[in-house]
């Protein structure tokens, strides 16, 4: 299981992918909002999204888990 984490304190604006979606490394999994900027959260690995942990409309701190991904690397 790979954890995608927030890089800074921010509001969770919207989920871009959802549980069950297949993604590739570099895909945007969620958009955060901080400092009046739209902050994309990128997946470092590809695989299947297991769960979107960060709830839309809530605040994440730096290092908080945004999404869980079952990595294609681990599965193979």
């Amino acid at each position, binding site marked *: 299981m790979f954890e995608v984490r927030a*890089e*800074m*304190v921010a509001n969770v604006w919207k989920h871009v992918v959802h549980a069950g979606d297949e993604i590739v490394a570099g895909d945007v999994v969620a958009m955060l*909002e*901080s*400092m*009046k*900027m*739209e*902050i*994309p959260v990128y997946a470092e690995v590809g695989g299947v999204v297991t769960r979107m942990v960060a709830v839309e409309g809530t605040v994440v*701190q*730096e290092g908080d888990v945004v999404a869980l991904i079952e990595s294609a690397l681990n599965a193979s």
Partner: protein
Amino acid sequence: MTQLETTTPTNAQTETLSSGQILANKRQERLHRVEPRGGREFTALERAEMFVDAGSFVEISPMRRPKGEDPRRTGCGVIVGWGMVDGSPVVVASHDASIASGAIGAVFAENVMRGQRLAIDRGYPIVYINDSGGARIHDGIDALHGCGGIFALNIEASHKVPQISLILGPCAGAAAYSPALTDWTIMVKGQGQMFLTGPEIVKAATGEDAHPDDIGGSRLHTKESGVAHLEVDTETAAFDAARLLLSFVPSSVDDAQRVAEPASPSPVAEYALSRVVPATSSAVFDMNAVLAGILDDSPILELMPTHGTSTLTQLARIDGRAVGIVASQPQARGGILDSKTSVKAARFVEFCGRFGLPILTFVDVPGFLPGTVEEKRGVITHGAKLLRAYVEAKSPKLTVVVRKAYGGAYIAMGAKSLGADFTWAWAGSEIAVMGPGGAVSLLHRRALKEAADPVALRAELAADYRENVARPYLAAEAGIIDDVIEAEETRGRLSDALRLLAGRG
């Protein structure tokens, strides 16, 4: 390379050998170690030879060795010499991990200091090829004294010549501290490590179980700690990166700036330049696309590419002149400044200033990231380092506000007040004491409280603020910005200013 048997001449033999044969034997000993080199592909000497221009390496004091040393051991654990890099001399110290894991003994240290002194006195860059377990315990306090001597000369050299450290093996203690006193540190992935002490001593001291890569691997140091500044895949790539780095920097603070053949920006990037910045002020873009449309289409070197990613630090060229670039990167964390990026940018600005490299700052900064986490990290102290670096840098300083510059972060990104020689703002940019949202809340608190539709009023006031307060014309009228320009004019303005300022600083 094969390991040949050493031919240590006995006293009986030496009586019958000619002086030429004795010398040949001594050299043979020096080149063919009896100790294994672990998994290393190249010897210390081969590394030094590979780094410099082919055939140009000359070792200084190759016969240096500790008194009373085990006769099977030759040399003092470090190869010190000089060679040419693109035609300019560079002093090289290459740790020999085949001798007691490259441990730094008293004679090893003296030999390194010999090279450092030559470089400082004559004005040549120093490249340290590090692969050492740290102080040599057998030499006791003499080893520590030697390590301290290397540090002192690292610091003395920093006022005179560029110093680059390459980490090609596990480097502990003094072998990790010396790089921290040099300008730039390049680590080879999966091979180079830096830590105060290795896993065994950590276990003994604190009980913590740590894998070498967890306490000192290249990913840790280039991404999280910021101790090292570049991660490369191979030793050859480390040598190439160091050579590229040296191509931007004069050999010493007394030498002229490096000028290469001028090159135009990439035509594709230049054509796209005016459309890189999105219309929506909250949308992100890649600042590299802006830089590519302005700078020469020639090799650049990005330092600390994976640490503090919302601010870019790069060595590049404009009209062939070497320049240091500090740029907000909105694509990463909105381009904010924080503790990490402040320290990263401050270090880079300080380096450029020391060696007279013009500093070009490209700004799209929403502010310093506020909050509990950053305050605990001491963002005030770290942010102040960036202010100090800009003020103290005496090289030409040119600043371009590409999209927005708010508050303290506006100042910290090379503002006129910090000594920028020229500052420009793109026509669509915003410069203000804070962003429209925050400013409207403060300025119109009462009106918003009493409004029938506060959301609509807020939007209206914010739009008004953006158009009438934050536009760069007010800053230009006040002389805080020298001129408001179109994106396509940027290269011309920068290159004219650099021509004017060349030789200053």
